């Protein structure tokens, strides 16, 4: 179970300049259970290659970006194909993973093609897309095509992905084979715009199965594309065993349930999606948008945005497509908005030092803690996950009495009305007269000092 990692790209430090060169160097090397990792440097890559010569053993192939795209179409490692990447003649179990990649597909046919030369050898094939941005300009060609004509299972998994299209399918099982592979699609925390899944089967084959499961997804399908339905089901389509949890969709309820097999939790139908960054009305979803295609599908931060905090039931990934942490009630879709934070200052405590907190006064004295200030540094008080909040120092204001602190009990004569007192001073004595007390009613005070 060895893992061999090679770097593909245009830099001098890359092992191979192209995916095709990497494949030809590695194709005969794997033993059963091995993993071949193709790390793609930043920039455009052409995956056009005939990869039918891999050693026919149980094999894992990973295509992984060297640097994350950070949720931006123009960044990172980008698959811009001039032709298909064909995994033909596979007779053993195969897993193909795509991690942190951008797929930028033209209108022509350029898919990952899964094929076999056997009609009898059962096999399991897994294709996973993790944190990928995928745009398909084609209206009839997929990004992943399952051309298997053999029994077994094909699992297609997309997590934290953007799947954008022009009405064409991003995954399809197009052919009508009498021996077709079961095909299961699981989408979690994905943002889907006008990208379809097509499932078909041969008229003579009633035993194959398929399903589409969607968890915490945003699904916007134009009504003019596949009648506004995310999954294309034809008269000969596979069985419908799917489900949906925490999904927000433009689909009508019956349309959504058509592929979700009437098994859904917390789904909202017929939702209006904005692609222009506008403020959503209550119950709507708004993306930042920008100029398309390849829109910015991050969420507009607004309390009305239905997607925010929507995925309370689905098992969501811990992070989003950009690597941001998702909170306890995450957003639906690939992008997690900034986490809402409630700022609750604690009650301000009063402590005294060097004197007891007894207050002596002839009128009511109130000790009123000032309002606790909260300061933020480097960002507006719309607080994102990871920002630091530093409460300011609490202030205490005292009304009605100057907060004098007396270190010792003074000698004093307290009387009302007139009073007199005499003290014999010695040479060099100092004397002090202290008048203390409330100033109410503006009393007049006369001090007469007599020296005899």
């Amino acid at each position, binding site marked *: 179970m060895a893992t061999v990692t*090679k770097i*593909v790209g*245009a*830099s*001098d*430090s*890359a*092992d*191979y*300049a*192209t995916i*095709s*060169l990497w*494949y*030809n*160097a590695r194709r005969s090397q794997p033993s059963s259970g091995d993993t071949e990792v193709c790390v793609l440097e930043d920039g455009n890559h052409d995956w*056009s*290659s*005939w990869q*039918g010569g891999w050693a026919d053993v149980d094999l894992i192939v990973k295509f992984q970006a060297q640097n994350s795209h950070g949720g931006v179409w123009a960044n990172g490692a980008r698959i811009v194909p*001039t*032709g*298909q990447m064909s995994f033909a003649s596979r007779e053993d179990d195969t897993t193909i993973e795509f991690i942190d990649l951008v797929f930028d597909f033209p209108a*022509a*046919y*350029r898919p990952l093609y899964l094929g076999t030369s056997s009609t009898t050898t059962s096999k399991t094939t897994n294709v996973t897309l993790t944190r990928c941005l995928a745009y398909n300009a084609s209206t009839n060609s997929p990004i992943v095509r399952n051309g298997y004509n053999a029994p077994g299972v094909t699992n297609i998994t997309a997590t934290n992905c953007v799947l954008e299209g022009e009405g064409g399918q991003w995954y399809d099982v197009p052919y009508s084979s009498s021996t077709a592979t079961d095909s299961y699609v699981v989408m979690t925390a994905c943002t889907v715009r006008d990208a379809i899944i097509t499932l078909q089967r041969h008229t003579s084959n009633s035993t194959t199965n398929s399903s589409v499961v969607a968890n915490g997804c945003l699904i916007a399908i134009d009504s003019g594309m596949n009648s506004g339905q995310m999954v294309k089901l034809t008269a000969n389509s596979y069985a419908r065993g799917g489900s949906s949890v925490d999904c927000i969709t433009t689909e009508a309820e019956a349309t959504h349930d058509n592929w979700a097999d009437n098994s859904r939790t917390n789904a909202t139908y017929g939702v209006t999606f904005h692609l222009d960054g506008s403020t959503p009305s209550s119950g709507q979803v708004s993306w930042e948008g920008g100029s398309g295609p390849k829109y910015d599908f991050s969420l507009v931060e607004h309390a009305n945005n239905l997607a925010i905090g929507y995925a309370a039931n689905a098992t969501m990934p811990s992070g989003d497509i950009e690597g941001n942490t998702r909170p306890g009630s995450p957003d639906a879709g690939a992008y997690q908005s900034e986490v809402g934070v409630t700022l609750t200052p604690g009650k301000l405590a009063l402590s005294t030092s060097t004197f007891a907190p007894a207050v002596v006064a002839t009128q009511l004295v109130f000790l009123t803690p000032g309002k606790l200030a909260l300061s933020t540094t480097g960002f507006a008080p719309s607080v994102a996950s990871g920002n630091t909040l530093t409460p300011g120092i609490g202030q205490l204001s005292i009304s009605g009495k100057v907060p004098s602190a007396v270190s010792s009990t003074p000698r004093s004569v307290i009387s009302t009305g007139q009073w007199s007192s005499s003290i014999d001073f010695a040479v060099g004595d100092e004397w002090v007269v202290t008048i203390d007390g409330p100033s109410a009613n503006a009393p007049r005070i006369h001090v007469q000092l007599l020296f005899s």
Partner: protein
Amino acid sequence: MPTQLVTHTPDGVVCAALQDGVHAGKAIVGGTGWDGPVTNEGWCILDLDDDPATVRQSICGAMLTASDISKAYDYFAVTDSRLPTTAQASLAATGRASITTVELLAALGFAPDWGAGLVQAIEQEQGTWSE
């Protein structure tokens, strides 16, 4: 811009058609520059004066009925023993040889499991077959 045609043993399958100046990768070109000697890991580089598009079209004209296809790799293989002796000697010494497109076509055949009909079917499916 001249072309580096990269092949790999045992069948001599053409794996890439790179422009001059493009580094094939440090696992293929062991030296410090893109035009250095080739490693001994089964790689060969044939340096041609024509640019990649011209090489591809010449291959199409010789091997297929198309005027152009999407690529000059995967489908074809070079048999070293059919190259000029000087080129064979150079390949043996450094893994690189400069040849003409005519000399390339004389040594070119289809890669294992490929033929003109299959290439045509694939290229037509992709929309990259032009006659």
